[in-house]
């Protein structure tokens, strides 16, 4: 009798064991396929790699920049360190919306509390979720937490579902037919694409004027974005962080004067500084015939170093920031960053010398 029971148990074990093995195999399979199928953002469109890269950065950051391409392409973090000893990070991403900036701040606070947060105001003009691809680039890189969930909920366009963010494979499964060499190369690891959030470009394309701005029937900045700006103010206050609002010195997309006035009024009300660098282009020393790589939309390395110099001067003179050049353990980390920075610059310059334009960065590097 007992023997039979044992046998029964063995059979049960056999079935359940294999069933569990199957579940495990399916889970591993899905995990691997997901890794394989998600976009890697390693060539051409590297902007999708930026948000995740923050978690690899080891040094402490006293200054945190939030915003879209107007921060991550316009401010050289290495210049800030080299010239002022400021240890900073740019948590920028393509078309980062105000609520995304807010949640990225919340997310950053889970790891460290910076002394100063610098927020670029251009995104205030968007009151609604804009596009799935930008959402993806900003949100997919965030580490999982309630903050990320909230960021997703706030950012989704009409056709998106949270579940597609929880399991990106549900969104990207049909990429099986368009996998590139890059996809296969970067299944588990990603290369570094920025220097503490700064995306370098060394090529030059002079600014040649912009079309006249379109008159609007309503210049009121959307409530949603302004409310999230208030929440950023509040969050900074709670954590004793100094907040600085800036408008980067680039002219396109157009920053209307009416918007400028509203942000200024907001800044005054909340007692935070707001600096519109459009008016300070000469003081910065920007020469838009050499300091931009895309006809004035964004700065190139030369422009980003000039702007970093200028903004760094403001930061050290107004806030009590550590000069990390004299803190050896941090300085050694930054030395590594500088090495990477210089290599990147040299590599880009080499390509410019050889081809007249960049091949491994930007539009030419996008795989199809």
């Amino acid at each position, binding site marked *: 009798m007992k023997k039979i029971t044992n046998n029964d148990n063995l059979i049960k074990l056999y*079935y359940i064991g294999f069933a569990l093995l199957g579940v495990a195999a399916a889970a591993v*399979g*899905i995990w691997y396929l997901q890794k394989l199928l998600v976009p890697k953002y390693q060539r051409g469109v590297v902007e999708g790699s930026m948000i995740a890269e923050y978690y690899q950065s080891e040094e402490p950051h006293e200054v945190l920049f939030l915003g879209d391409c107007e921060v991550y392409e316009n401010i050289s973090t290495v210049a800030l360190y080299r010239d002022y000893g400021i240890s900073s990070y740019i948590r920028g991403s393509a078309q980062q919306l105000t609520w995304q900036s807010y949640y990225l701040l919340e997310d950053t606070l889970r790891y460290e509390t910076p002394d100063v947060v610098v927020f670029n105001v251009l995104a205030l003009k968007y009151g609604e979720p804009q596009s799935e691809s930008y959402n993806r680039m900003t949100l997919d890189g965030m580490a999982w937490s309630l903050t990320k969930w909230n960021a997703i909920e706030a950012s989704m366009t009409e056709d998106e579902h949270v*579940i597609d963010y929880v399991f990106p494979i*549900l969104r990207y*499964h*049909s990429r*099986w037919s368009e996998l590139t060499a890059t996809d296969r190369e970067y299944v588990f690891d990603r290369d570094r694409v920025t220097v503490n959030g700064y995306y370098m470009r060394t090529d030059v394309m002079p600014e040649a004027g912009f079309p006249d701005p379109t008159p609007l029937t309503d210049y009121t900045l959307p409530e949603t974005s302004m409310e999230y700006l208030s929440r950023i103010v509040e969050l900074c206050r709670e954590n004793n962080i100094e907040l600085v609002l800036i408008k980067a010195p680039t002219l396109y997309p157009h920053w209307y004067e009416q918007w400028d006035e509203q942000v200024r009024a907001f800044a005054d009300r909340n007692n935070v500084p707001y600096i519109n660098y459009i008016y300070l282009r000469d003081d910065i020393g920007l020469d838009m015939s050499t300091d931009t790589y895309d006809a004035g939309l964004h700065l190139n390395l030369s422009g980003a170093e000039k702007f970093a110099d200028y903004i760094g001067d403001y930061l050290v003179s107004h806030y009590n920031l550590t000069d990390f050049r004299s803190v050896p353990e941090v300085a050694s980390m930054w030395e590594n960053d500088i090495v990477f920075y210089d290599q990147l610059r040299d590599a880009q310059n080499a390509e410019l010398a050889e081809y007249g334009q960049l091949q491994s960065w930007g539009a030419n590097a996008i795989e199809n």
Partner: protein
Amino acid sequence: MLFTSLPFVLFVAVLVVVYYAFVPHNERWGLLLIASLAFYFFADPKYLIFISVTALTAYIFAILTEDYNSKRKAYLKEHKAEWDADYKKRYKTVTTRVTRLLLFFALLICLGIIAVTKYTNFVIETINSMRSEPLSFVNVIVPMGISFYTFQTVSYSIDVARGTVKAQRNFWKFLLFVSFFPQLVQGPISRYGDLSQTLYEPKNFDFRGVSYGFLRILWGYFKKLVVADRLVIALKTLTGSPDEYKGAFVFVVMMLYAAQLYCDFTGGIDITIGIAQMLGITVKENFDLPYFSKNIKEYWNRWHITMGTWFTDYIFYPLSVSPTMLKLSKWSRQHLGNEVGKRVTVYISCFAVWLATGIWHGAAWHFVVWGLMNFVVIMASQELEPLYAKFHGKFSFKGRHWYSAFEILRTFLLMSSLKLFDCYRNVGLTFKMFGSMFTTFNIGKVFGGSLLELGLTRGDYMVAFLAIIAVFLVSLYKYLRGVNLREFLFDKYPLFVLSCVVLFLCIVVFGAYGTGFDASQFIYNQF
């Protein structure tokens, strides 16, 4: 809620877990009822009203009829001695009339609801096409699955009236029979006599049953998501611009649609039956390898079986054996000769069945024509049978493999061409397109890159092709061995698990779902 929507998958997953983990085995039917009603409620709370009215009608009718029948039987027995034969006969006639009347009212209500909700606009449209000043359409809800649950209640009512099943006296149990959710999406049409056997009984966790059910669900999703929903994209393009895609493209449409419809419909049934099986409930099969049929009559015995038998049992038989028809049969045999006369009544009944089948499929004329075309083809093959017999008498092809293959292919092509009505949605257009197959020669164009302009990539065709091969091989296994592949696999259990894992991964990666693919509904859930 669609089978292929994530909420549905979660709904079923949660249900199965709660079903076995938290509910005592003899109360599990109650959870099924709650789940079914919730399913309806989330689709649209208004649907609950419609289904409740239908269920309540049939429920009350059944009890009244059964009680009345037992009373009159008892009464008859009691007075057996004192009544003469004539009086007995009269008593029977009168009381039968009462039950008939009851049945009439029950069916009037049930069929009335479906007639009003589903066919009002069809009637208006038809009237409009004949008048100069159009009537406006009315805005009515068509409750989800109404054709399926109405047919189930109608068959139940008739069966109770005939005395072949016992009336269900627990309203909630009866409501579960009517609303059992996996069947609401696209059938099958279950009979009370079949379903009630497993629906209410206490259910224990049966590992084999749950495993079979699980694999079957995966298989259903595989067919549906990997093949059907992918092909539908190309089909939409092809049938959307018929002027551009003529000739050989019509043949492409035929083939793609045959595969698409098969995978969509049988896949959906696999999901339904698989879910039921996981819940310990046996649902009647709806397909039996239809594409292996050797003639159209056999095809209709193998395709959408529960619908076919429904029409046979509740329309064809009652009509053909009714006293009027028997009289007509006698008359025609006397006046038209035995051979012809014998067929007259059969053909009349058959015509009625196919007319009804057409209308049931959808409130549109192309369905009516499609139904009648089926009738014509069946009649033609029936009439040609003696000829065939002669032919086979001369040459002994029949039974040879190659001839069987020929018959299967012939039936497949015939049925696929009839399905064109469903593709082009317009009777005239369908005939025109069918004709263009023989007048427009553009095979070169089809393979000259045109296939890649239909919305599918080379990879998509590859995946669909391989998946169809897989579906075919699994069917072939069953056709040749007579058993399902899953039984073979279960005996080699690790292989069974492996199949589940592989299927699951294939569905996730190669399924045509989400952004970039259009969501599509089961072809059959509108009926």
